């Protein structure tokens, strides 16, 4: 029997970009097994829980990054160190790191970036030569690019090269994540999390470059429960109807029709 529900204590909750907050919490993280999994947070005063990706975790500590988009995330942004949050831990499948090959490409768009960080950390630890491309609207929205770069300082032989694109050109390359891809020499596998238009553009661009690079995509959908009970968040795949919360949120791109 699994105790999915954990009471986590907030260690810090700080703004790291325009409307974007990073929250660190202490508590039991034993149920988290893979980067790309998420937690479902009971925000006091709201009926449904809020699904948020796990950005980073270690025994006893969890990091999430969230954007203030509505009343629930607004309430979260006002919480303080010492406050407690009830969450369902370690939900979803997460990214499969065994398929990465030597030269994985990781792509994060906006608040699709957090799960990509945990993944980059894991792949670098496995000695992989990781390329990360992050896309944001503008300079004020950019976060975590130094954290990704810091992963370069390691003893595993792995590396992490970071490229940033902003739509208005105020930081990094002007344009979209796809504008950075030409700089990357080798891609053995790709992982992406971000808005659907970004995923579509990415797939098209990669297809132009070389047919059939295998990849994994992380999806978002409105959820009732987050653990597979209500069938609120279905997605139609080439191998049948799937639940985003339980069978995903990560799917093989070859399995997806978008």
């Amino acid at each position, binding site marked *: 029997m699994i105790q999915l*529900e954990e009471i986590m204590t907030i260690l810090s909750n700080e703004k790291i970009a325009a409307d974007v907050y990073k929250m660190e919490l202490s508590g039991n993280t034993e149920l988290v097994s893979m980067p790309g999994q998420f937690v479902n947070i009971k925000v006091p005063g709201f*009926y*449904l829980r809020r699904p948020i990706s796990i950005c980073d975790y270690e025994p006893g500590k969890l990091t999430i990054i969230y954007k203030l988009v509505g009343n629930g995330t607004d309430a979260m942004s006002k919480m303080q160190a010492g406050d407690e949050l009830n969450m369902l831990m370690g939900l979803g499948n997460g990214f499969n790191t065994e398929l990465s090959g030597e030269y994985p490409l990781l792509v994060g768009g906006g608040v699709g970036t957090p799960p990509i960080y945990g993944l980059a950390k894991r792949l670098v630890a496995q000695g992989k030569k990781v390329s990360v491309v992050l896309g944001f609207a503008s300079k004020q929205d950019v976060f975590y690019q130094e954290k990704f770069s810091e992963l370069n300082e390691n003893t595993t032989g792995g590396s992490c090269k970071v490229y940033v694109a902003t739509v208005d050109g105020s930081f990094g390359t002007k344009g979209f994540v796809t504008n950075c891809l030409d700089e990357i020499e080798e891609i053995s596998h790709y992982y992406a999390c971000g808005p659907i238009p970004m995923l579509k553009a990415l797939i098209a661009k990669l297809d132009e470059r070389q047919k059939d690079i295998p990849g994994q995509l992380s999806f978002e959908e409105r*959820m*009732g429960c987050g653990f597979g009970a209500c*069938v609120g968040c279905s997605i139609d795949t080439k191998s049948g109807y799937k639940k985003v919360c339980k069978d995903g949120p990560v799917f093989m791109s070859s399995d997806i029709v978008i």
Partner: protein
Amino acid sequence: MPDISTVLSGIKLDNPIIPASGAFGFGQEFARLYDINVLGSFSFKGTTLERRFGNPTPRIAECREGMINSVGLANPGIEAVISEELPELKKIFHKPVIANISGFSIDEYKYCCEKVDKEDQVGIIEVNISCPNVHAGGMAFGTSPDAAAEVTAAVKSVTHKPVYMKLSPNVTDITAIAKACASAGADGISLINTLLGMRIDIKRGKPVVANKMGGFSGPAIFPVAVRMVYQVYEAVKLPIIGIGGISTAEDVIEMMMAGASAVEIGAANLTDPYVCPKIIEALPGLCEKLKIEKLTDIIGKAHN
């Protein structure tokens, strides 16, 4: 120790707690979390003749003290439920289960009931004539007394198992529907299904769920459910499964006092996956506090 067992059409339940159809799948997700044999029973996901994706997404919206779903009877279809889900369920759940059946025509209801009739694991057939999320059929059968009676008679003709008709609250007079089901031979009444509701995203100026409207459930609808159970208890002499907004042991007692012999719990399982075992644990203590020796003694107590 107070006796919290109850009875539905001759089937003894260890307690009145039954997860409602659509909030518990086919039990597997919850069996990972706790021993689901602590439950009185559970009602499995609404099953139709054909496999269904359901409505387009998004199909969940939040409400104050509740939620809207427009899942639209997403299910693997009756054949797969019988050949795959039930055998898997048998391994983890050793009590009679409630088979929740939906249809788009009288024949479809009949076909599905005939199929589940042959399954030993099924104790009760719950016939959903109240789904607000499908265009043809579904709720249409539950909003006219004649149609409700027709479905009841049709399914009764193909099964010997107890048939509970699950009613829609989206009607002017719930007692007329309940009476029609009773005279057509129903063995019990389950109520309520969700209230038809809607949310609009004010930033986009568009409905939140793709299907525009959906079924509203959760604590916010509890008073409506209590009122309807109370009315139906006076209208028909059939056992009632009280459903709608239940999330605490106190709610269970209140619903039983209105006239329910057992209760189903839906949305609360989604926000707190352990809510049912928590309520089952809390019930004996609450009974003691209220000086209830036998839970069945309070069924319909509010009518005296």
